């Protein structure tokens, strides 16, 4: 009897694992397949390439759909990967990369200070809590002053403008993550380096930083993904040249009849980079998402 129950339990567990995996992956799979279908096929419930439909790359890079699909008329179709979209991808990439570097640059000394020194007037715990609490700010509470500040600096619709906003957006998270990393590092190594003639700062650069390098990469990647995914600020301060990939997607006009085969490509392009990040930085993600409160 116990044996049967055990086997039933195991069966249920595996069934759940498979169901959950399918539930997470199916929508992603569907959008991938949609991007390889002929426009007239996107509403077909077919999903196995070659078997159920003939996959094509025309939606991606343009070209001709061939005579069969268009009823004898050979039309040149514009692919989803247009100059506009490539420039949006570059903007996203640039803004996310540079701002994440800025976060590290500003965040490392602050995080190190919080982890290693004791502050008196304003206690470490209070500073830490203050920085943590900034995460709860809703972005819409800042869009008017942000717009005016960028306008004042002539940075509306520019990449530097986005970099400034994303650095701001990610800095609290960056400091909190980096502080934990330094706190986990035993201080003896830096202390012995200082006995050998290093200053505190050169010990940080020469000794501590190389030791936390993997964590630094993880913090960088997490900031990168958040900046890449951000929508509201980008929607507020860009309209032409500095539009990011999320803005392109948000501005798909439903009026011009939704072109799912094109949209699918854009959705994939927006989804892929942060997903790669998630897989590379997997060890640190739970920590990143809970501001270090839970070490996954």
């Amino acid at each position, binding site marked *: 009897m116990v044996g049967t129950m055990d086997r039933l339990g195991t069966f249920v567990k595996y069934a759940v694992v498979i169901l959950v995996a399918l539930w997470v992956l199916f929508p992603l799979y569907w959008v991938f397949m949609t991007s390889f279908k002929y426009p007239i096929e996107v509403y077909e419930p077919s999903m196995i390439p070659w078997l159920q439909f003939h996959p094509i790359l025309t939606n991606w890079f343009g070209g001709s759909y061939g005579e069969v699909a268009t009823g004898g008329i050979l039309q040149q179709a514009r692919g989803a990967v247009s100059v506009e979209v490539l420039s949006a991808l570059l903007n996203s990439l640039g803004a996310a990369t540079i701002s994440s570097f800025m976060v590290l640059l500003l965040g490392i000394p602050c995080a190190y200070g919080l982890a290693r020194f004791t*502050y008196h007037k304003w206690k470490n715990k209070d500073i830490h809590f203050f920085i943590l609490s900034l995460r709860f700010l809703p972005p819409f509470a800042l869009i008017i002053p942000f717009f005016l500040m960028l306008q004042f600096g002539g940075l509306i619709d520019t990449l530097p403008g986005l970099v400034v906003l994303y650095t701001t957006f990610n800095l609290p998270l960056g400091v909190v993550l980096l502080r934990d990393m330094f706190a986990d590092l035993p201080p003896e190594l830096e202390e012995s380096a200082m006995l050998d003639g290093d200053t505190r700062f050169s010990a940080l650069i020469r000794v501590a930083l190389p030791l936390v390098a993997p964590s630094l990469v993880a913090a960088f990647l997490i900031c990168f993904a958040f900046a890449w995914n951000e929508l*509201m600020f980008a*929607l507020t301060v860009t309209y032409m040249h500095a539009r990011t990939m999320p803005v392109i997607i948000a501005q798909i006009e439903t009026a011009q009849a939704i072109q799912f085969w094109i949209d699918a490509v854009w959705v994939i392009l927006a989804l892929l980079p942060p997903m790669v990040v998630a897989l590379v930085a997997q060890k640190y993600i739970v920590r990143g998402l809970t501001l270090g409160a839970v070490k996954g």
Partner: protein
Amino acid sequence: MRPERTKLLYLAPALAWIFAMILFPLFYTIGISFFDYTLGGETEFNYGLNYLTAVQDYRLWNGLKVSGVFTVVVVSIEFLLGLGLALLLSGRVRGRRTLRLIMLIPLFACPIAVGYLYLMIFHQRGPVNAFLGLLGFVEMPNWLGDPSLTLFTVGFVDIWGWTSFMFLILLAAIESLPVELYEAAQIDGASGWLKFRKLTFPMLLPTILIALTLRITDAFKIFDIFVGLTKGGPGISTEVYSMYVYRVTLEYFKFGYSGALSVIFLLIMMVAINVLFLFRRLRKW
């Protein structure tokens, strides 16, 4: 230089940035909330009139209601599903590592793209309705056009994305629980439910509280997936608070009023967070 000053130098760049780019803008927003400030109009102090307008604004209440209902429903479901899955799959289950990896994917998926992705899934002629057709349904639900369904549909998408969050956090917490206590309980012959109630749950509570706080505050200010899926429609039936403030700012250009809406939201958030942490203090963790 005195060591105390050197120590402060480490903090200076980041804190200066935060003061200039977060606190100053925040105070600016609070400031303009007391002004009649619109695009092209005269800017005048109006003695809190914006706040009086706000409490009588049905779209504000609509936004609070939509965001509030959405938050309560999705976070509860995400929590229960995540906890259930984490309890079921903690310990040795084959495929658990792969599943963990798969569950990471939605966490970093660009929310606006996820919104559009589900536009395809829930389309009138999309795969969900195709599946219902296979089951023999004739009248297909209009997932994104029927006001009684849209919020449910967006909720589903949020649950798709964030159940992972609860699952991964709780799984990490469950796996770090001390094994000895369970062995002792085993020897005493405690049932599974008793072990959960007396051991697992109390020890998980601090983590649960953190996870809930983060999810509640995030869900309450949700914006992106609603832009992708409904743009607030049909009508204003899914116009969340964030979207309303965004529109007041960048479509109606009422900056002073937008400031007041932001301040009201901040106050609500502060109360909510304090209530959540009150539990913590009451239990003296």
